[in-house]
């Protein structure tokens, strides 16, 4: 079945948001706000009120990375220090907590940062091919509202876009 991608370019957030609000109120039957992708040069601070809270698992990656880093750091140091068991210690501790805490702390941060970046790249779907409807005007100053929908809804959507003062409409058909 053919799927249509349609994107309207708007001059400002208000027009784009009013379009999305109508979609949210089921102005086009069978099209929901979950089908909407908003493309913009900046992130609007109130975007979650319009699109709904879609969440982000990136902080979970941070937490996991930080915990892993701290444990790995400490175990790495302790296992390295355990080599000194074969040498005379003169009464000194083999696994020294004060120095290991400092280094485990650094590992906590390093792995936390690396894990956060990996979480971002995976969830933001970076390093994938750009969508055919990508417009350079979005990186300049216009706001794109893109939807994936059936053929029967394409004309209704275009009408809705025009009603909200769209500047340009682009479309792409996927088989």
């Amino acid at each position: 079945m053919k799927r249509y991608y349609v994107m309207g370019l708007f001059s400002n957030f208000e027009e784009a948001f009013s379009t999305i609000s109508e979609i949210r109120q089921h102005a086009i039957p069978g099209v929901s706000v979950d089908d909407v992708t908003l493309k913009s040069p900046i992130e609007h601070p109130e975007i979650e009120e319009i699109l709904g809270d879609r969440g982000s698992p990136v902080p979970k990656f941070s937490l996991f990375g930080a915990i892993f880093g701290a444990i790995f750091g400490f175990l790495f140091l302790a296992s390295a220090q355990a080599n000194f068991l074969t040498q005379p210690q003169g009464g000194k501790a083999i696994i020294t907590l004060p120095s290991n805490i400092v280094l485990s702390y650094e590992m906590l941060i390093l792995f936390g940062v690396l894990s956060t970046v990996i979480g971002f790249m995976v969830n933001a779907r970076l390093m994938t091919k750009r969508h055919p409807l990508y417009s350079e005007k979005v990186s300049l100053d216009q706001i794109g509202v893109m939807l994936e929908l059936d053929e029967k809804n394409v004309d209704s959507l275009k009408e809705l876009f025009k009603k909200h003062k769209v500047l340009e409409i682009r479309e792409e058909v996927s088989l």
Partner: protein
Amino acid sequence: MQTKDINENIAWAKINEDVLRSMENPRMGYWVALAACVAMILCAVLAEIYQYQVGMGPSDLNWPHMWDLYIATFVFWIGMSHSGTLLSAILHIIQADWRKPIYRFAEAMTLFSLMTAGLFPIIHLGRVWNMYWVLPYVSDRGIWPNFRSPLVWDAFAITTYMTSSALFLFIGMIPDLAICRDNARGWRQKLYTVLSMGWQGDDRQWRHFRRLYLMMACFLIPLAVSVHSIVSADFAMSIMPGWHVTSFPPYFVAGALYSGCAAIITLFILLRYFFRFDEYMTIPIMEKTCKLTFAIAMVWTYLNLVEFAATWYGHDLVAKELLMQKFIGPYAPFFWAMLFLGSVLPFTFAFEKLRRHLPTMFVVSLFLNLGMWLERWMIVTPTLSLSHMPFAWDVMWPSMIQWAIVFGSFGWFGMLFLIFVKVFPAVSMYEVKEMVFHRRHYHNDELESKSHRREGDRQPADADPSPSREGA
């Protein structure tokens, strides 16, 4: 003299245009500065080649002066690296929007300072082919480095800081790299296409990007503080007079922030001139940076006084003698110069007229950094000159080889920085757009609704959009 803050009516397209144009068309001063930096590097390279061939003898680094300018300058560059990432992260978390036009180059300053600092332990080794010994690795006899040594902590902390700062800088640039990709041609387009990693600016990417940036800022603040605390531990965990001081970690962190802020002022003024960024790097932003620097200068002054008082009342005779020698001994001119430049000169920031006068601020910021460099020299050298054993007391004056390499390090930093700001946008375009959007949104809604419609765009009334296949 322009004293306006950033123009909130500026069109987003103009922000792109101005920043992208700056990357291709700097003033002649840019090329002069780049040539000067390359000449400075050549001085250092010649000195290093000589030192490499002859050995460490010409550098005069010998007992008791095993550490001198190389280590002092290493600490200086580590300190310089602090303000960029740390201030950017703090100001991001507290949502201070004036950071937006200046944070990019400040973060770049962090990265290149660390890259410069990293050279000094290697140069200081003398046997540069053994540089990998500074890394925490296991030798073929199964022996690890001593993890109780702050020098090993340094290797961990600085590597972590450099990796995290580089990622923070790079991640923050991704939306701007996408703008560059969409506008560049030739080799630049290929470079930006790879680096922008397919950024499209959709809500999914922005949502994760915001979370990522916040999380990284949260990680980087304690990291930056820990790094300079650990560098201070190189000194404070020894029993040398003048180094074994409890207040060293906060003292180092304050000194690092101070020199970093002063460097931000210097580079702010240079970039504003080289790339004609008058509309973005505005005088009010400059004033805020100056006020912040002044506040940090007073913290640094206070911590100096704490150190003096602790030594004076501590009844450690050697440390007290060292302190007296700093006041009246052979290093006294440099010590007093450090105090004057670090504690008195910042009072120029208290005067609005001076704060708004860029040439004055440029000169003051250079002198502040000279003061901060002297501070590091006055930490390292006098202690080694006047330590526990009076028969080893000696006055050390650095050799020309050391001066040449230190001089060249400024050229190395300058060259990296100047190349960076030519290849990558020195002003964050998307963040400046956010800044003007927020100000416009809360000040003038009507203006906001009109501002992104350019000449040639269809007007809403007569819009008759037909489907476009561009980009399909």
